[in-house]
Structure formats: structure tokens, C-alpha cells
């Protein structure tokens, strides 16, 4: 039961993007299409779960003072694995995510969970925590990317939704659109929370 709670808290109540405002760079950088958002989200989820497992296993072996560098090395190893696998099997996605794959290393969500959760808890809860947070991140990416792709291209996951007479709002998939969509989504969430 408690494991289930660890899992669900990342999805909505402690959503890393909308509630805690972590990991903003990939959130805004890759969400110009839903496919990119899903790819990025799942890659980060994999790294998050694996890093949480390893860190919760070795937490007692690491001296407190050097724990951050140790965590970073663990995270960087898994990011390297993701980087190589994606390069080999998903070259198109690899190309469109580009710089943001190696930059998963510095995604504050992953180091944040290592520090706040995996470094203090046992393996099983850490797996659920990582899974929940990772999927919460993916969910947020998909929501933002859906809005941007829909407005900016009239499509969702590459499938035409709007009639061809629809004039796409190109701004939504350009850089400013990322900030504006994110701002309005956060404001809407704030409004819902107040009620």
C-alpha cells in the first residue's frame, strides 16, 4: 500500500514539473512535438529508476561528504547507456533530442530524488518513487507537448487533427511559445488548486 503511495505522489501531488518546477530545461526544450516529449520522458524515467536502485543499494557505503559526486557518477553512467542505445536503435529520436540526452545528467529531478529519497530509503520504495516521478515527468512533457504541437502544427503525434484550413500558430512550437504555454498551464493549475 505504501509503495503504491510512493508511486502515485509523483504523478500529481508532487509532480516534478508543475508542482516543484524542476527539470525545466528539457521540459521546454524538447516539447515541440509529443513524440519527442514521450522519448525524453521515458529516457529520464529509465535513468531515474536505475539510479534510484543503485543509490539506495550503495547509500551506506558512500561517505556523506562525497555523496553528490558519487550520485552524479552513477547517474552519468546510466545516461551514457541511454545515449548509446538511443543512438543505435532510435537514430531519428536521438537526433531530434540532441543535446538534451547527455543533459539528463544535470536534470535536477534525478539528482533531487537521489538526494531526497533514494539516499534515505530501501530499494523497493525507491523503485516506486523513481517510477512515479519519472512517469509524472513524462506526463507533464506530454501535456505541454500536446498543447504546443496542437496549436503550432495542428497535429498530435504527427496525426492531422485540425482541418487543413487551420492556420497553425507557428509561435507555439518556437522558443517563446514554450515559455508562454508553460506559464499559462501553471496559472491554470494554480487556479484549479485555489478552488
Amino acid at each position, binding site marked *: 500500500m505504501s509503495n503504491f503511495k510512493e508511486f502515485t505522489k509523483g504523478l500529481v501531488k508532487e509532480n516534478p514539473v508543475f508542482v516543484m518546477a524542476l527539470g525545466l530545461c528539457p521540459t521546454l526544450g524538447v516539447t515541440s512535438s509529443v513524440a519527442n516529449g514521450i522519448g525524453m520522458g521515458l529516457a529520464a524515467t529509465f535513468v531515474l529508476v536505475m539510479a534510484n536502485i543503485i543509490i539506495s543499494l550503495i547509500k551506506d557505503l558512500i561517505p556523506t561528504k562525497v555523496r553528490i559526486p558519487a550520485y552524479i557518477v552513477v547517474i552519468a553512467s546510466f545516461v551514457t547507456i541511454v*545515449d548509446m542505445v538511443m543512438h543505435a536503435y532510435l537514430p531519428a529520436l536521438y537526433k531530434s533530442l540532441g543535446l538534451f540526452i547527455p543533459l539528463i545528467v*544535470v*536534470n535536477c529531478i534525478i539528482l533531487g530524488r537521489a538526494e531526497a529519497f533514494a539516499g534515505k530509503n530501501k530499494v523497493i520504495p525507491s523503485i516506486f518513487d523513481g517510477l512515479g516521478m519519472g512517469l509524472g515527468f513524462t506526463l507533464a512533457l506530454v501535456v505541454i507537448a500536446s498543447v504546443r504541437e496542437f496549436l503550432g502544427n495542428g497535429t498530435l503525434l504527427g496525426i492531422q487533427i485540425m482541418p487543413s484550413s487551420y492556420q497553425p500558430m507557428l509561435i507555439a512550437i518556437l522558443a517563446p511559445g514554450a515559455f508562454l504555454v508553460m*506559464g499559462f498551464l501553471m496559472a491554470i493549475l494554480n487556479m484549479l488548486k485555489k478552488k
Partner: protein
Amino acid sequence: MELAIRIFSMAIAAIFVQNFVLARFLGLCPYIGVSKKLDSALGMGMAVIFVMTLASTFTWLIQHFLLIPLQMEFLQTIAFILTIASLVQFVEMVIQKTAPALYKALGVFLPLITTNCAVLGVAILNVQEEYTFFGAILNGLFAGIGFTLVLVLMAGIRERMDKAEVPEAMKGMPIAMIIAGGMALAFLGFAGLQF
């Protein structure tokens, strides 16, 4: 003369056209987090310029004299993040000794430069763009200046926003995002600028 023009066009490109924050979506956490006060924004910006220049220098040396001769380019992510982490630790120690007031103002954000994706981003970009040694250093410097410019502009705007009447749901993060969107829109005007 030709060299001066090349350096100038590089500066324009790194500071305005391909601005790290507004066009590449790197370094958003400090951009939103440290932009509430003008002086701390300036301090953070200076620290980032310094770290970025140093990081570009050292990661270039590591890439070309260690990783390439040993054919271990796949270790790039791990090697670079460790270099940056130790550099940041060093800068933190220096600032703590020489400018305690600044150290107090920056607070928790100084260690966070490690997880500032702009720093790792510039290191990886330097490799991808195949810059020469001096090109890499200059690129790091200019990218840092571009980051500081938008950070300080943002802090200036947000200081004034304090006195403005913002709708309840928009307060805090959402309005900061909308401002960033406006700035990104303005910076989009630089697109295509070349010398």
C-alpha cells in the same frame, strides 16, 4: 582584422542569436530561481561566466588530450560532469573566502551551478561544433555573457513586477514564464543576424 570580425560575429551569435537561455533552453533553473533580485542575479551571472569559461577550457583539453587519444569518447558525459563539479567546488571555496557577502547572497544556488545544464551544455556543444582551443574558450565566455545578460534583464523586470498588480493565479512562476516568453519573442528578432 579578419580575426576581429570573426570573433565579433561569434559573440553576436552566442549572446543574441543562439542565446543559451532563450533560444537553446539551457540554464533555466537559475534563470527563474535567481532572478528575483538584481544584485544576486549579477553575482550569479558573474559566477556562471567564470565557470563556463573555465569549464570550456578544461573540457576541451580533456577531450583532445585524454579522451580522443585513448578512444574513450563515450566517457565524455561522465568526464565532463566530474570536471565541472570539481571546478564549481573550487569557485565556491574562492568566493567564500574572498567575498562572504556575495557568498551569502547566492546561498544555495552556487553549488547548483554544477547542475546548471548551460555549463555542461557549452562543453558538449564545443565538442560538437569542433571548435579550436581558443574558439572553445571564447564560446564559453560569450555564452556566459549571454546568460548573464538575460538573467540581469529578467531580474530588472521582475523587481518592477513586484509593484504591479498580477492576477492571483499568475503570481510567482507563471508570470515569470510569461515574461520569459516575451523576452524570447524579442530575442527571436535577432534570428538570422549574421556578419
